[in-house]
């Protein structure tokens, strides 16, 4: 496991900030599609289900994508 991890980290490092932005974008697309189909606003859980993640994760991802400056700022102290 250690070897593989080292390899992945040295090579294609994907930062969380990037992944969260992707999830948020996909969530937006799914939401628009569902609204067109159902004529009502889909719930967080419905969108999360479509993206195969938990509603808790989706909420967190959307949060991070909203304010990268503050969530990832390393300015304090």
């Amino acid at each position, binding site marked *: 496991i250690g070897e593989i991890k080292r390899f992945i980290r040295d090579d294609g490092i994907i930062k969380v900030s990037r992944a969260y932005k992707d999830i948020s974008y996909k*969530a937006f697309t799914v*939401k628009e599609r569902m609204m067109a189909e159902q004529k009502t*606003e*889909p*719930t*967080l*859980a419905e*969108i*999360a289900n479509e993206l195969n993640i*938990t*509603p*808790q*994760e*989706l*909420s*967190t991802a*959307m*949060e*991070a994508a909203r*304010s990268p400056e*503050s*969530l990832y*700022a390393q*300015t*304090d102290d």
Partner: protein
Amino acid sequence: MNNYMKLEIPSKTTNEAFARAAVGAFAAQVDLTIEELSDIKTAVSEAVTNSIIHGYKDASGVIFINCNISCKDDKYTIEIVIEDKGKGIEDIDVAMQPLYTTSPNDERSGMGFTVMQSFMDSLDVNSVLGEGTKVVMTKRIGAENTYD
């Protein structure tokens, strides 16, 4: 389903985003819409920012966030309590007026309490000068039924 969480964080500006995320992740167990979720997060932002900026000014202090989810007749209510042990508010009625701010130079809009009030279903503020401020907000989830 009844559930709760109690959270304690230091009054750092980075923790405004974390508080939003934590309360949002907690609220996410209820089947709410993105809009309801975003209302809750916005209200949390305003309350936590107030504790950081006004309650503790530039000093470091602790912020307590308690959340409760309760269910009655198939409707959920989320209660969020945000508390600081900071300098407190002299006159709550005045402080809650739209556009009222004691930090006009800080680019504060004076609309924090108004935002909390309009994005949540109830807002209750308790404060004692020199002891701290406690904001209690609730939101009912499943909006169509709340207008019956």
